[in-house]
């Protein structure tokens, strides 16, 4: 609607004013996103370190050394595993949750608030809560398992101290954080489906599963992809959960690309190697951006 009237004013009417109004914002973003991005690429091919001011270009040296490092390979693998596992769990759970939240019931506002807490509270603080729940000695999960006689006292595993359990914990906390966000997006998508369509299907004798697979899921594909694409970005590029929960340990078993980039580039002062590691995020970002544009474009055409 607004699109047709948008073209009627055209670009030529008040271009000077338009440029004056959006130039400051564009300039700001160019300086604080564009320039650092170019610098990140430059650093990745250089020998920049914290404490020295200049740097020399060294070609592919950084990439050669990080590709040979076992920590990097672990981090790359973990990042992919974390992201994929988290997305599968989040999509399944958030769909169920969205269906449950869709029906009106008493106390819905309070329920919604409680369910949204993981997303709306600062992520570093929520993760600290999990660190306490998963504590090596005072874990409430351990206490319950001991009380149920599944483990003898003091013999329960350390949730964050063993590689596989630590990985599972990191994935779980990511899911915990993303499920509310994803569920709200799904809810918005479901409420956009015209009520007559599922009703008509029900009259024609379509059951729950048939309605789900032939009406709800196809109609929700665009919104589903938006939730997945944001989920991928939020998980793949996040370092807060890993940094607070395990700091990448034990023995790099939960290290991800962002947390390794921080450990190498900032904590370890090797800006060049850190920048090279974080550049491995770019292909995924480009892929997501491309798919996001396709989703937006398709939605406009329909």
């Amino acid at each position, binding site marked *: 609607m607004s699109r047709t009237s948008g073209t009627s004013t055209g*670009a030529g009417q008040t271009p000077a004013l338009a440029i004056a109004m*959006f130039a400051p914002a*564009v300039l700001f973003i160019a300086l604080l996103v564009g320039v650092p991005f170019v610098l990140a690429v430059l650093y990745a091919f250089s020998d920049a370190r914290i404490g020295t001011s200049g740097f020399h270009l060294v070609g592919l040296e950084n990439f050669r050394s990080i590709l040979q490092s076992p920590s990097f390979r672990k981090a790359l693998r973990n990042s992919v595993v974390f992201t994929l596992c988290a997305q599968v769990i989040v999509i399944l759970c958030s769909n169920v*949750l969205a269906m449950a939240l869709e029906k009106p019931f008493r106390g819905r506002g309070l*329920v919604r608030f*409680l369910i949204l807490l993981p997303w709306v509270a600062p992520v*570093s603080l929520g993760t600290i809560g999990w660190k306490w729940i998963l504590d090596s000695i005072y874990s409430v999960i351990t206490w319950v398992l001991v009380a149920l006689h599944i483990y003898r006292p003091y013999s329960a595993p350390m949730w964050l101290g063993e590689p596989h359990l630590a990985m599972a914990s990191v994935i779980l906390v990511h899911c915990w954080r993303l499920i509310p966000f994803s569920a709200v997006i799904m809810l918005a998508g479901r409420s956009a489906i015209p009520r007559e369509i599922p009703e008509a299907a029900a009259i024609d004798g379509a059951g729950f599963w048939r309605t789900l697979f032939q009406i709800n899921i196809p109609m929700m594909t665009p919104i589903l992809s938006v939730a997945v694409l944001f989920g991928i970005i939020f998980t793949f590029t996040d370092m807060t959960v890993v940094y607070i929960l395990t700091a990448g340990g034990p023995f790099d078993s939960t290290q991800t690309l962002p947390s390794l*980039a921080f450990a190498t580039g900032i904590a370890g002062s090797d800006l060049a190697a850190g920048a090279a590691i974080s550049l491995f995020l770019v292909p995924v970002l480009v892929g997501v951006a491309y798919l996001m544009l396709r989703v937006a474009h398709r939605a406009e055409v329909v």
Partner: protein
Amino acid sequence: MERATLRKIGARSLHVLVLAFFIVALAFPFFWMVVATFKQNIDLYTVENNPFLFNLPPTLEHLRFLFGETRFVRWLGNTALVGVLVVAITLLLAVPAAYALARLAGRWGERLGIAIFLTYLIPPTLLFIPLSRVVAILGLQDSIFSVVLVYPSMTIPFSIWLLMGFFKSIPRELEDAAMVDGLTRFQAFLRMVVPISVSGILTVVIFAFTLVTQEFVYALTFISPERNQMVGVGIPIYLVRGDVYYWGSLMAACLVASLPIAVIYNLFLDRFIAGFTVGSIK
């Protein structure tokens, strides 16, 4: 008839069960913060005690310690100050830009709008290494002004996106009429469009402020002195002395800092979500 009633009861109990499961799974960490906040240390650290019960009377000691003997209040103040400044910078740059892209630049503006939205997808973990040096060169290292400078680069793109949608929904006859009455386009924007866009602008205010409270990576990278911390970094990093976790006051801090943010964010969530869905719902 009987079967139908049974089915209905079954569906209802399934509904309640699903909701109960998610409430427990998602809200439990916050419930657990409340419990730890008011428990005496001996109770917290006696492994044999049932952690779900108050085996000793509740205490306000952790809250007293948090507010009296840590820099928690200072961190809250830092965060609030940064929040206000970032909101101001965001509004100053994003409101005119969004208007220009929504109205003045036509189809070309739409493309630029999408490009700006895409910069929102660029994460801090890609830029924090070069930015740490930019911040050092500008002499802002260890100062809260490092994040005041950098955070708007995260808030502006999404704010422009949200506001563009908002401005497009305002009928352009409004400004046309004002311009017939002799106002310039910019005056019409300031006097006619901005006042009726208060709710859209408020959404951006909340979005920018909550982002400031939620961000972790840049604050961790740029600021080291304890007294200059933002609340999201100060609590997890500086409330821990060496290897000793003061769990009671740590949980109290998480609770006190999260709840107000959670309440405000919750009120505006639907509008943010509308922005996230990138026009994939009509």
